[in-house]
């Protein structure tokens, strides 16, 4: 079948994908990381924001406005983080991956719970724990592809 080998070489065939993660790039834990980092950043900002000393109405309006914005961003980003995590958990990860990562469900359950806790509370430890748990998801995700990808954080 030497002729076939020559044909293959001289007349390359069109390609068909026996996977599509690569070209699609649909799933990536980076989105959850960015959201979780924003939650941590907003938690820090909320805790650091000083209320005005006097009773100046303008100063209080500015303070409350800034505080409300921080809170809203924290709320939104925690929810987005949860959505991103659930998509990875239910769409990307397959039963086969459980064999590789027996703690997969625990990690996702904990991560989703931390998203909720970070909405309800202004808790620096939990916000940091959320980032750390997303890092675990990141490691599991890339391990299923046999790749090691650095977990970059903005902070």
């Amino acid at each position, binding site marked *: 079948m030497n002729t076939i080998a020559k044909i293959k070489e001289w007349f390359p*065939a*069109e390609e*068909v994908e*026996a*996977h*599509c993660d690569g070209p*699609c790039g*649909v799933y990536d834990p980076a989105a959850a990381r960015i959201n979780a980092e924003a939650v941590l950043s907003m938690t820090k900002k909320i805790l650091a924001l000083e209320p005005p000393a006097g009773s100046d109405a303008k100063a209080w309006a500015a303070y409350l406005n800034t505080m409300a914005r921080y809170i809203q961003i924290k709320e939104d980003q925690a929810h987005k983080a949860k959505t991103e995590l659930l998509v990875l958990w239910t769409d990307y990860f397959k039963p086969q991956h459980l064999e590789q990562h027996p703690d997969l469900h625990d990690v996702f359950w904990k991560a989703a719970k931390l998203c909720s806790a970070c909405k309800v509370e202004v808790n620096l430890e939990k916000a940091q724990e959320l980032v750390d748990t997303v890092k675990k998801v990141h490691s599991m995700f890339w391990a299923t592809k046999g790749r090691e990808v650095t977990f970059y954080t903005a902070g």
Partner: protein
Amino acid sequence: MAFSKLKESSWRELLLWLSGFRKRFRVIGTSMVPLLRPGDEVLVNPRAYRQTVPQVGDIVVSRHPYRVDVRLVKRICNILEDGRCLLEGDNPSDSTDSRSFGAVAPQRILGRVTSRLPR
């Protein structure tokens, strides 16, 4: 689901290809291992489903439901009542398929894989 074998291209298949009744594709990726390895080439009958309907177990080349420029090679693992097909890789841990993107309309199927060219 029983994984059917895929025959190596016979002279008849090669003649059909030379006369334009088969299309040739090269496989990339590992979602159809061990049946198809990366770099394998297959012959596809684009007219396979003109007279008959797709069958569970058929290996097909299909357009990706959301990426028209991406062609997939997968196996039909189920057919819904409305005729849409569920596609799955033989090697599910390394495959993105109907488990993620849902059922595929039969019009998106470009043909049935009829044989594999000798390695």
